[in-house]
């Protein structure tokens, strides 16, 4: 791609202002772009005032391109622009307004503004101008949040159907986001922006990029699974139970598409309330300890994150995440901000040593609660690292990279060994979850396209696999009311169909090639091999350890002769459970054989992410 100005743009002249985004194309030339905030105006930060008093059109050259290949210059002399003016938008920020443009820019077309005297370049890209899909995101959040009418007089069957209907509708609403998502763009699509709390410049700002879309789909899909699996096991106040999940699913989708820090924070914290109630009301014998531990642990991290947001607001005057990406921050401040974010997200993922709440929470939670916790909530931590901690403080990321990689490796190896000695099935799977999420953080902090892609695919795949395993445990628990491994043995004799699924899921958990569990882990190991042989070596021991605890679990629980009277009374899975497990198994195979369906969506966002994290901000001040 040729440089549009014939060589005037030089790397050293380039200035970043909040609101700029970088696209790396595959060509060596880079294009610096902003995003439009509202239709046809350039969003900018309060610190941007490139147009001083003597601004005239003569000082600037403006180029546009629909595809970053062919460039046309726009001049006032031509019929292209009516006027270029600088003004102030509703929030008091300076904007550049280009009016009456022909041809009308379409989504994805680029503008470059070159200041001839200073050589500074500002670019922008048109995103989602009055796109019909804009409202989709709000619809997604609010639809599940409508929940189920708390009519305890309704019969259980009716409540089940209403809940299922609600979950299905919210899943169907998320599908257009996937279908209409433009995978070539790395900017935020389907943006929706309303002024909300103007005294603090907090706005209701939503948008998705390649990282959010698969996770949103995963969330709405898992909600359906959770409601289906709870059909028979939850008789006590089932209407409240389903509505808690539906509300939580809405809030989680909100976390994935929030583009304003405080809006994100509100969804993040509010999500704790339904989870707290789910574990506390419908959980196991020691549920109170588990749920309060979960709540307070998570809130501590979140409060530190709030302080980080307030500090960033104090520095920049805005809460918009996009603005934070380009905010210059000194190295000391970056380290503190990163640590604050780390506290919040490392509890969520969870990373060793902040993981102790997870086994308790999983063991005490009801089946549906465990599924959502493992499949979605853990991913919130990984997503947040990608969205917040790493791009906002890139220098601190690079500085603390060895520490994070070490913690990830400890999680992978040590936690897997802990999983090996567990006596409770759910606790074993919980520790296995922590171990798999260690791969996610390892891949993220290797900061190469292969590793980050692998980490992301591992997130999605782990969502399916751990959900499936918890569902299997739940099915067994519903019949025997025990999760202890030694109380089982020889289940295959009574439940052959179920065993087939369970063995398959255990293999996927161990990372069998052909299943999605392998893809993510393999990519991360490859990525770590590029970095350092020993990291790859240690990470690769998971292939042994993972297989050992998964297969040993299967052997003890399923194979052999019928262990005791309780096992002798087991009956095989019914069609509803078969449906759930079948769908999950197919998805695991699909992603395992054709991971491209996920990597296609995330590709541009991954490249953009790496660019953001590689760009050093500490020097700009």
């Amino acid at each position, binding site marked *: 791609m040729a440089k549009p100005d014939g060589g005037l743009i030089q790397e050293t002249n380039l200035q970043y202002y909040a609101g700029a985004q970088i696209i790396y194309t595959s060509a060596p030339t880079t294009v610096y772009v902003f995003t439009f905030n509202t239709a046809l105006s350039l969003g900018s930060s309060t610190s941007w005032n490139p147009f001083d008093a003597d601004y005239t059109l003569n000082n600037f050259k403006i180029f546009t391109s629909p595809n970053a290949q062919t460039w046309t210059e726009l001049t006032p002399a031509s019929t292209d622009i009516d006027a270029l003016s600088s003004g102030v938008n509703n929030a008091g920020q300076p904007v550049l307004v280009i009016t009456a443009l022909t041809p009308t820019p379409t989504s994805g077309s680029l503008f470059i503004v070159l200041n001839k005297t200073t050589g500074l370049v500002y670019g922008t890209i048109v995103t989602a101008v009055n796109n019909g899909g804009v409202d989709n995101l709000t619809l997604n959040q609010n639809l599940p949040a409508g929940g189920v009418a708390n009519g305890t007089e309704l019969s259980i069957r009716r409540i089940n159907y209403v809940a299922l209907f609600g979950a299905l509708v919210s899943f169907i609403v998320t599908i257009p986001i996937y279908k209409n998502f433009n995978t070539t763009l790395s900017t935020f699509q389907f943006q929706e922006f309303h002024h909300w709390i103007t005294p603090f410049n907090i706005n209701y700002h939503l948008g998705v990029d390649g990282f959010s879309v698969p996770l949103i789909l995963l969330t709405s899909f898992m909600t359906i699974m959770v409601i289906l699996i709870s059909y028979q096991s939850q008789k006590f106040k089932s209407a409240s139970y389903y509505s808690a999940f539906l509300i939580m699913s809405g809030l989680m989708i909100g976390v994935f598409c929030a583009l304003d820090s405080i809006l994100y924070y509100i969804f993040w914290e509010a999500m704790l309330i339904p989870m707290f109630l789910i574990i*506390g009301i419908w959980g196991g014998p020691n*549920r109170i300890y588990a749920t309060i531990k979960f709540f307070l642990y998570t*809130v501590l991290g979140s409060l530190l994150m709030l*302080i980080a947001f307030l*500090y960033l*607001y*104090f520095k920049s005057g805005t809460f918009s995440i996009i603005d934070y990406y380009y905010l210059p921050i000194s190295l000391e401040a970056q380290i503190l901000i990163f640590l604050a974010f780390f506290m919040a997200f490392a509890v969520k993922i969870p990373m060793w040593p902040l993981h102790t709440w997870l086994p308790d929470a999983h063991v005490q939670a009801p089946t549906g609660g465990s599924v959502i916790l493992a499949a979605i909530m853990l991913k919130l931590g990984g997503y947040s690292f990608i969205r917040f901690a790493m791009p906002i403080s890139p220098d601190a990321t690079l500085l603390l990279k060895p520490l994070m990689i070490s913690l990830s490796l400890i999680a992978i190896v040590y936690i897997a060994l802990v999983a090996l000695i567990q006596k409770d099935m759910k606790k074993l799977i919980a520790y296995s979850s922590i171990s798999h999420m260690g791969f996610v953080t390892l891949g993220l902090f290797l900061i190469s396209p292969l590793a980050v892609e692998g980490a992301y695919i591992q997130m999605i795949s782990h969502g399916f696999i751990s959900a499936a395993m918890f569902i299997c445990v739940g099915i067994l628990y519903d019949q025997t009311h025990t999760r202890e491994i030694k109380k089982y043995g020889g289940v295959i004799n009574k439940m052959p169909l179920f065993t087939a699924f369970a063995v398959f899921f255990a293999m996927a958990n161990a990372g069998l090639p052909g299943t999605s569990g392998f893809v993510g882990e393999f990519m991360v190991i490859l990525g770590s091999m590029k970095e350092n042989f020993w990291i790859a070596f240690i990470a690769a021991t998971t292939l042994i350890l993972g297989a050992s605890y998964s297969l040993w679990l299967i052997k003890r629980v399923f194979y052999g002769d019928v262990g005791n009277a309780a096992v002798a009374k087991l009956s095989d899975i019914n069609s509803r459970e078969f449906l759930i497990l079948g769908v999950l198994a197919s998805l695991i195979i699909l992603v395992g054989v054709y991971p491209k369906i996920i990597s296609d969506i995330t590709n541009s966002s991954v490249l953009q992410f790496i660019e953001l994290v590689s760009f050093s901000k500490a020097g700009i001040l």
Partner: protein
Amino acid sequence: MSNLISQLNLLAPEIFVALMAMLILLLDLFVQDKNKHFIYGLSQLTLLVAGLLTASLGFSEPQFAFKDMFIFDSLAMFLKMTSYITLSVVFIYSRNYLLDKKLLNGEYFSLSLFALLGVMLMISSKNLLLMYMGLELLSLSLYALIALNRDDKKSNEAAIKYFVLGALASGLLLYGMSMLYGFSGSLDLYTIGNVIQTQEINSELLVFGLVFIVVGIAFKLGAVPFQMWVPDVYEGSITPVTMMISTVPKFAAVAMLIRFLFQGLDYLVVDWQQMLLIMAILSMAVGNITAIAQKKIKRMLAYSTISHIGFILLGFYVGTIGGVQASIFYLTTYIIMTLAVFGLIILLSNSQKSIEFIDDLKGLSQTNPWEAFLMMIVMFSLAGIPPTIGFYAKFSVLQVVINEEAVWPALVAIIMALIGMYYYLRIIRIMYFEKSDKKVKKKTFLPMLSVLTINAGGLLVLGIFPKTLMSISALAVGGSL
């Protein structure tokens, strides 16, 4: 003559409230027991008319009366209107309870109105003497209100404690005031401020006087280390009186703080900032940590109040207008939450068994699911969890603190808030996670339940649309400082 009329016009709400309070006291002698609702209606009418009278005054410019003793500005307007609404809600919630206990008579309403009069005078005073008069009027009325249930030993004990400590604190405040008068030769706050700023005064003695003033303010607020009366008074009074003490006098105390420290003694900001910071941190710490150990619900709420006062003081500590705005916003949300929580306690108590221990709420989600849900919203709001308004209150205060690059107080504040969450969660746990002893659904008074629904539900609604309340608080402060 017209000057006098216009000045009296400014004082019309106070005059009206005073007259009505005395009238109610008289009428009470002639009204029979079964017609006591008339007294209740008259009191509500008083508040309504006082509100209308206050609303008819303009607040764009501060107006003065009686040789600048009395000031009416936007802050006064806001605080007075909220105190009318608060007292009105207190009356609504307490009516049935008092009827059960045969305490629904003129004394309660009259004393409450006199206390309100004291609060109104304190809010609007620019003069040391008027401030003290309002303070004494408020305090004396409260002493009597605490002892309203005069056959109860605990009420008498609480009243005596509050009386003794209150007298001590008032004496210290008066001593500080006399020192200020001695330095400046005037009782007017603005004049004192001017004199301190322009003339050379021995600053050590001045700070000495300042300390006594801060002590008086801190006592009224219930901030550490002057908080000892709070748990005993909250527990000893009957719940309607507790509700009143925890809400209405706070307006006066905050007004006293703003008028003294921000309008009068703002030159000494560096000195009182440190005092406020220490009191804020200690209040948050003591309040939150001690509340964990409480078994009685009113004592727990008393310590929780102390921790909220700590947050409010943190906003004042910052010393800027933004800090005052944040604290006033926090105060307003605190009032709404406090009204809701005490209202729920009153609703769930009846003449046989009042809710005294936290365990009395066990399993409430099964017997009274709607009330339990409302209580849950209130608890989450007190803890500061989004999307309730309580979160925005803490958020505003933290934001102004960090804006002054004072990150350490903010960190301490959130750690204390985290510790505090434990006992709010405990209430939710008792209600939702435990099984109830009783199988029968408790019937509650429906009109009061509807008002409570609006009150507690408002916490959630305001949490989704907090802008209006924030803007109103900001305007109120911005107009006067």
